[in-house]
């Protein structure tokens, strides 16, 4: 198995989502938001549509773990799910990657640690 495959590895049940790991499994709010804003709606929708039917199962799978002690694969899956919530606003609320009519994203510092 190559290093790349290992980096993308998700729990077996969610193997089909591994194609999204490199782009969307991001550890910080800042990175997830930047990815959302720099993606096209087409790319966002492709990710959203793939994730939506799996979200309940993802939550259930992760519920066997504690946030304090997440294995690598589960951590990757969690970060995918967090990106899903980030883009959900673009798909369900704004119909565009960023927030229209809002102050420019660059002017709001995301300080979340």
């Amino acid at each position, binding site marked *: 198995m190559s290093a790349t495959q290992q980096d993308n590895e998700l729990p077996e049940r969610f193997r089909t989502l591994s194609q999204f790991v490199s782009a969307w499994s991001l550890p910080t*709010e800042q990175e997830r*938001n930047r990815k959302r804003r720099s993606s096209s709606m087409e790319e966002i929708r492709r990710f959203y549509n793939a994730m*939506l039917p799996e*979200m*309940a199962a*993802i*939550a*259930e799978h*992760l*519920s066997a*773990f*504690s*946030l*304090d002690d*997440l294995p690598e694969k*589960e951590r990757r899956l*969690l970060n995918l*799910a*967090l990106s*899903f*919530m*980030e883009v*959900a*606003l673009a*798909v*369900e*609320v*704004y119909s565009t990657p960023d*927030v*229209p*009519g*809002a*102050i420019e*994203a660059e*002017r*709001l*510092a*995301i*300080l*979340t*640690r």
Partner: protein
Amino acid sequence: MVEEIDVNNSDGSEPLPGPQHVPVGPNISAQYFELERQRIFRRVWLQIGRAEAVPNPGDFFVRRLEVLGTSVLVVRGRDGQLRAFHNLCRHRGNRLVNQPHGSARAFTCGFHGWTYDCEGALVGIPLESEFRGCDRAQLGLIPLALDVWEGFIFVHLQTSPETSLRKYLEPISGMLDGFPFAEMELSGWWGATLTANWKTFQDAFIEAYHVLAVHRRSIPDFRADPIVPSAQPLGRHCKLTYYQNLHHKPKPAEALAFKLGSAAFLNVNNTDQLPNRRWPSLNVENRDNWVFDEFVIFPNFHLFLGDGWMLCHEFWPIDVDHTNWQVKYYQRRTTSPAVRIAQEYSKVAMRDAIREDLSTIESTHAAQRSGVMAFMTLSPTLESLIVHHHNTVAGFVKGLDT
């Protein structure tokens, strides 16, 4: 005095007052700003952070407070006590600590190496023999008064303020007993510096009227009942209660968030555990569609309390035309990944809505700055607390508040 505004005028006794005219002069006058600096910010308790951010001896954070012309170092001593100091070395005044936060055994000035312990005492002067007769005990860090209320750290520029923090916060000081502050964990933290007067910045967050327009995309079905939130002046402070549309139909991700247990700020499914049963000062009207109470703690701290979350806004004037703002969003601490996922929805929705809130502030200030418009025309009900806040500022500036 605590006065409820009777928006429905249901007993038909007192007619509602007409529109309120608030002058824009105080938002654009450098001279007025200087009075605000002297008579408000140098004379009142100011909230600068949470105690749990510095839990252990040696933990510290630094805040530059332009309005006081100083940088403040908050540090927990080896005795467990929190203290606040001006962040400057007593030798020649160089800034002592440059890191925004961290943990230290001692603080050593980068200029000549004078060293202070975590209680502020000067403990080391390199080549001290060349300072013969210098009394180290007289050269500790210069303190500000510091006190803590419900985990919120307040500082006061005077070392012995004439008013205690508890008394300053009246009648709010006892109102939040029992709110689970200890369960709250920092989840989102955002900031911006805008070209706007600090009051103009705050005004965007002291009414719900704007939701109809500013949040027309993010909250398109806003039909809160009552449409006028309960507004309550509380001495120099005030409180606003927000309601939502209970018939809101959540979209898929939002619905999932509710189901997974985020007590989100748009949560519509929490009516079986109404928080007013636990916190008597929140949702005092006991409405099913209560969403949060906002306490505006004079002069520049807005505290939003909802079921399972809180939001802390700080508005720090730089000068009459510039304000540094930051907001911290707290959610209930969890070890559950599912709850964490749910909370992320609330956080992102909150952040995006706040970016909408920030969209009007600079243009409002610029327009007021033009001098074309002498006053704002405010609703005595929908925007009553903006009037209250500006009146309170004016009272301090005139020297009426003691």
